[in-house]
């Protein structure tokens, strides 16, 4: 199938400042693409470029197979939800939702029918006569989505739509957006700085940093096989443990040696490791370090570690140890017997391990 959104070699400069560099992304109909990255990475600019609200310096944007690079926003067959919702303050909710249709000269009967359809879908029928100023944050969010839904566009664009909501409402609305995506089968592009939102919503994630694409892939790929140190550190909470280590090949595999303060170094043997340089950074997610006895398998290696801190978090308990000069967090069961200041046998699951080159930060396995 032809991609519904195809961005090729996109560059965006503000004067001499390069905001976006050589962006190449394509998505299929029904995809949910999330652009994620720290603030100032260019993700919102990229979305504005897709919408046509910002002209691009170089490259092409195709939407639905048509070249839209120089087409104005209203002719791109897109709808957009903004961070501040951007509801028209002097219009009622109904007028907000139908404004686009009115501008395009859709007849009144169709406007009314679509309005009722969308209002029913979002459960905002009782709000239609209110002004945006009389709505709560969650209600405004719904109206903003209604304004996008009523257009039935090829592409939905969301610019951090949940960042103005409180934590509880955010989780609710996140689920609702996901439901909407599944029910409509619509194609969506979604900008966020929240990696949990990215993981839960996306079918495809683009991680951006400094205007450069770091990695494109499914949430599982991004989470399990981060392409570099930045992605490894940015995605996941708590972050992936990134431990400096020394690799030495021996007969059966590779010995991974991790130095420890005032103790013999921790030595793990990875039988599956590729050819590694001597200095590597070993990446392991907190959940891939378990209490010995709770995780079994060929590639699980045990070692006694001194626990510095125990942080119960309800469902899990996080324990912090010190390896290779770095804090290392492990996610243990809530009923763990770990105590700070004592040693605990930990199991390292090396089947999930990532290796990175310390200088370039690139993935090695």
């Amino acid at each position, binding site marked *: 199938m032809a991609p519904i959104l195809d961005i090729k070699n996109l560059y965006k400069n503000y004067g001499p400042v390069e905001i976006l560099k050589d962006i190449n992304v394509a998505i299929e109909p029904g995809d949910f693409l999330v652009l994620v990255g720290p603030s100032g990475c260019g993700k919102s600019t990229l979305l504005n470029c897709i919408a046509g609200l910002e002209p691009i310096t170089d490259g092409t944007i195709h939407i639905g197979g048509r070249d839209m690079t120089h087409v104005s926003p209203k002719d791109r067959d897109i709808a957009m939800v903004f961070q501040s919702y*951007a509801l*028209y303050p002097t*219009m009622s909710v109904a007028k907000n939702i139908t404004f*686009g249709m009115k501008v395009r000269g859709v007849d009144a009967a169709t406007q009314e029918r679509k309005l009722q359809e969308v209002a029913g879908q979002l459960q905002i029928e009782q709000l239609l006569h209110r002004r945006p100023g009389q709505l709560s944050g969650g209600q405004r969010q719904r109206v903003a989505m209604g304004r996008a839904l009523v257009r039935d566009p090829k592409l939905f664009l969301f610019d951090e739509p949940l960042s103005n909501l409180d934590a509880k409402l955010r989780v609710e609305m996140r689920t609702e957006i996901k439901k909407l995506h599944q029910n409509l089968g619509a194609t969506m592009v979604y900008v966020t700085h929240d990696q949990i939102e990215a993981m839960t919503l996306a079918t495809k994630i683009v991680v951006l940093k400094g205007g450069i694409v770091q990695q494109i892939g499914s949430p599982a790929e991004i989470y399990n096989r981060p392409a570099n140190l930045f992605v490894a550190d940015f995605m996941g909470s708590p972050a992936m443990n990134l431990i400096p280590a020394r690799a030495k090949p021996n007969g059966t595999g590779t010995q991974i040696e991790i130095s420890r303060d005032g103790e013999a170094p921790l030595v793990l043997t990875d039988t599956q490791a590729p050819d590694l340089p001597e200095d590597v950074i070993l990446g392991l997610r907190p959940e891939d370090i378990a209490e010995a006895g709770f995780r079994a398998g060929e590639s699980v290696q045990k070692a006694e570690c001194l626990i510095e801190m125990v942080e119960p978090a309800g469902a899990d308990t996080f324990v912090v140890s010190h390896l290779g000069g770095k804090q290392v967090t492990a996610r243990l069961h809530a009923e763990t017997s770990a105590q700070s200041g004592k040693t605990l046998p930990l199991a390292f699951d090396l089947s999930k391990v990532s290796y990175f080159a310390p200088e370039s930060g690139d993935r090695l396995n």
Partner: protein
Amino acid sequence: MTDLVINPTQSRPWGKILLRALLFALLGLFALFYLMPLFVMVTTSLKSLEEIRTGSLIAFPREITFEAWRTAWSGACTGIQCEGLRPYFWNSVVLAIPAVLISTVVGALNGYVIAQWRFRGANLIFSLLLFGCFIPFQVVLLPMARMLGLMGLAGTIPGLIFVHVIYGIGFTTLFFRNYYVTIPQELVKAAKVDGAGFFRIFWSIFLPLSLPIIVVTVIWQFTQIWNDFLFGVSFSQAGTQPVTVALNNIVNSTTGVKEYNVDMAAAIIAALPTLLVYVVAGKYFIRGLTAGSVKG
């Protein structure tokens, strides 16, 4: 126990009441001070010349007569003609209303463009317009006279309207720009995605939001244009003079006995429209001023 309850309630209200009384006395005194000139003007305008000559300046009129008002309106002499203020008053109305409307509309569009459609050089243009607010009237007199002559508008009311519109644009743009700058840019983006164009966005989204700042601008511009004397005296000729110039002529060109009652009545007539605008739209004035500055 009764002591405990009574003591604080006894001492406190007396002190409070005394303070209040002092406060009101002081405020009343200020009010009287500021109202004094108006009082003198109104009472004098209602007296006959005979009574003015014999009576005290601040005394109430013994006999109220509207003769002076009638003369001021339709009989007082401005030089050779003796038609009163009436024709000049209408000159001012015909001059002020279009000038206020045009400068407000242009200012609103300018402000909208500068605040919401950031184009290259928008800030420079805004700075230059702002600079225009600070150019003294006297500096532009000669070039403006030449311009009006070239345009064939010298000595006409359209010419005066032109001058006031040009001079007002700096201020009206400043007002609207500062008001619109507080409106999030995403609103324009959302409307663009919805398919609305430049004027549609202005008309459907920005104008309905603008009532407070429109009121501020109208009051400001009306007061400026109605009360203007320098442009009026420089760029008009007999028959097209605004009311301020006519008032000056009435007061300064009489020979013989000075008709203070007529002068006072004429001055009040000339000042009434601005007073009216403040009374009608005053509460929006304060609201609009704070809405523009505080919200951002």
